[in-house]
């Protein structure tokens, strides 16, 4: 037997496509809209959510038999808030540059519905190892969408990727700009992120009819 059983592998691969937290569960939309104007920000957010979700899931899973059910949401909130603060402080001390990029998103991690959603739906009922895999899988599914949206928004909105001018220089009129291309400023605004997420949902459902809900 390998490191991961078939069931365990599903925990990681499912959220990437057929049970994606953003496009199928429709969680974590707010942060996906807010921070995807740049690819770099999307990547940093994806990595930090993965750290917080994986560790948080394990902590909640270890505590699942002693948490009083009446205050379980508050307990979950305390765990995620404490984790985020510790991660932020450690980064500030040992990786100051990265922490400056991240600091904007700290609040968004705490309020990220995916984290609370996975604590509530998975970690409270499963063991630590499976919860860890579930955390990694869901954060990866979330990050995947974030990176796709960030890619298109930065490319079409600013003509750059990770800050590199891939389409030429808009002021000097080189590259694509020489033949009359213009950056689409609308891509940088949040509504356009919603539209891009919508397009991803549309593409995904048109390829897999099983995902379409009956109403």
């Amino acid at each position, binding site marked *: 037997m390998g490191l991961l059983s078939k069931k365990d592998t599903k925990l990681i691969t499912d959220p990437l496509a057929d049970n994606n937290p953003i496009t199928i569960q429709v969680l974590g939309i707010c942060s996906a809209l807010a921070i995807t104007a740049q690819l770099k920000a999307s990547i940093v957010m994806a990595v930090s959510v993965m750290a917080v979700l994986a560790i948080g899931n394990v902590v909640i899973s270890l505590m699942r*038999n*002693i*948490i009083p059910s009446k205050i379980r949401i508050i307990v979950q909130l305390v765990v995620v808030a404490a984790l985020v*603060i510790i991660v932020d402080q*450690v980064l500030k001390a040992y990786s100051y540059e990265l922490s400056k990029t991240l600091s904007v998103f700290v609040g968004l991690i705490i309020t990220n519905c995916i984290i609370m959603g996975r604590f509530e739906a998975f970690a409270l009922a499963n063991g630590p190892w499976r919860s860890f895999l579930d955390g990694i899988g869901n954060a990866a599914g979330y990050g995947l969408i974030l990176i796709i949206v960030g890619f298109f*928004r930065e490319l079409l909105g600013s003509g750059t990727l990770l800050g590199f001018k891939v389409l030429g220089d808009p002021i000097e009129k080189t590259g694509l700009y020489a033949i009359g291309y213009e950056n689409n400023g609308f891509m940088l605004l949040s509504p356009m992120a919603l539209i891009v997420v919508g397009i991803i949902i549309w593409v995904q459902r048109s390829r897999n009819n099983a995902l379409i809900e009956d109403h």
Partner: protein
Amino acid sequence: MESRTDKNSYTILFAVAMVLIVGALLAFTASSLKPKISENQRIEKQQNILYAMGVNNNDESSASFVSTEEAADLFSKYITKQVVIKNGNATEDEKAYLIDLKKDKAAAAGDASKRNLPVFVGEKDGKTFYVIPIYGKGLWDAIWAYVSLDENMVIQGAYFDHKGETPGLGANIKERFFMDDFIGEHLLDENGNFKGVTVSKSNGDPKNIDKTDNEVDAIAGATITGDGVTAMIKSDLKLYKPYFDNLKNN
């Protein structure tokens, strides 16, 4: 059957224990990392000040500072004098860069004469720079800047930063294309009165060739952050006008 964990007494005990443990954990983390964090912030300030007077590792498009290891050495090499202006009197102060503008501004409660206004006088290639830190409000949170001026109050360099502006929009004030627009801009109008620099949506000068119009191009989608930059420059740099008048007269 009601399980053990559903009892009220258990819930209360659990809550108390959790608060104590998490509180202690956070307090421990914060206090043990504090010296390291404030050291980082101090170095960053020195890097920012040096950046504004053109001592940096910039290439064509990115904004990058001198390395953290060199910062302290370069700071003492280039910054020849630190001055604090209070109520019109300028005195030298070695620790001027430790002044917390936010606290200072709050303590003065709108009375500019009570404020401690730091100036960092730097020498580079035989030219004198006056680097001034300013502090204001963006859309979501604080914004601040280090602006270096020559004795005629013409901007020689600027570094903008923010605490929580929107990435891709207001956060772009710390991008080269925005900061570099300020270089060469005059803060005074032709009569020598303080006018500041306005971040303008109707500048009509995208390459920013006209340096005496007291305007730079705004960032699309970042109106309030841009207005914050304008307001910060007008309110804070204005306070230094008497100091520069004095410089010229002597």
